[in-house]
């Protein structure tokens, strides 16, 4: 197997995630797109770990998964709070800090 086929797959997934973050206005779907990007990074880490025969890739991917779990927990709590205060989770409507 080429190393590049995993790296290209991860690049495609990452760019789809970037598109989702920029184009979606539902906050839950923006968080889902961020998960796509984190998964692309994990594929990269694991592929490099297998290529170098080094356990560090797997360990760092585990750390990334942990951070992703923490991020989703806090992010969804914030989304629920925004919904409770403004009755909408469209990110276009959350523009209180706009001058």
């Amino acid at each position, binding site marked *: 197997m080429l190393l*590049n086929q*995993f790296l290209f797959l991860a690049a495609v997934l990452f760019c789809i995630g970037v598109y989702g973050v920029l184009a979606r*206005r539902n906050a839950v779907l923006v968080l889902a797109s961020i998960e796509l990007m984190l998964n692309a990074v994990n594929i990269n880490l694991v592929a490099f770990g297998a290529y170098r025969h080094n356990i560090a890739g797997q360990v760092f991917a585990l750390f990334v998964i942990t*951070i992703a*779990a923490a991020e989703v927990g806090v992010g969804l709590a914030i*989304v629920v709070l925004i919904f409770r205060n403004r009755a909408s989770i469209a990110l276009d409507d959350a523009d209180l800090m706009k001058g």
Partner: protein
Amino acid sequence: MVAQNVVFGILAAVMVISAWKVVTTKNVVRAVLYLVVVLAGAGAQYLLLAQEFIFVVQVIVYIGAIVVLFLFGTMLTRAPIGRDVRLDNDQRWLAALTSLFLLGVLIAVLSNAFGDTHVNATSVQRTADVANSMFGPYLVPFEVVSVLLLAALVGAIAIARRD
């Protein structure tokens, strides 16, 4: 090796199509369920690279826990279950342009850097090696991450609770 490449191709096609559906479908619940397919495909890729522990963690943490969190979030924010035409904002073309540009740059750089480097994933990286590494050289990051998880847990409860 040929069989591995065929499996990789099938998985990659399924993952890319599902990821595209995650960011384009008009239905929030369906988008989260397509996310499950992408996460399972990533787990299968880890298995293809002979890294077993990360596959198990991917299934338990991502597909088991994070997707359930997403579905809870969808439910609590009373997202429309049917089709919703207002899920995208009006900068869709700009976003597509940005991500296509980023994809072009990444592909150019990667094919330049790792032209025909081969992965030889014949030796399985065992769970025992992961454990030795995590409780050996990576002990301090491991403890820091556990404190961070606790902080995130307390923070999520403090943010979301009704008072």
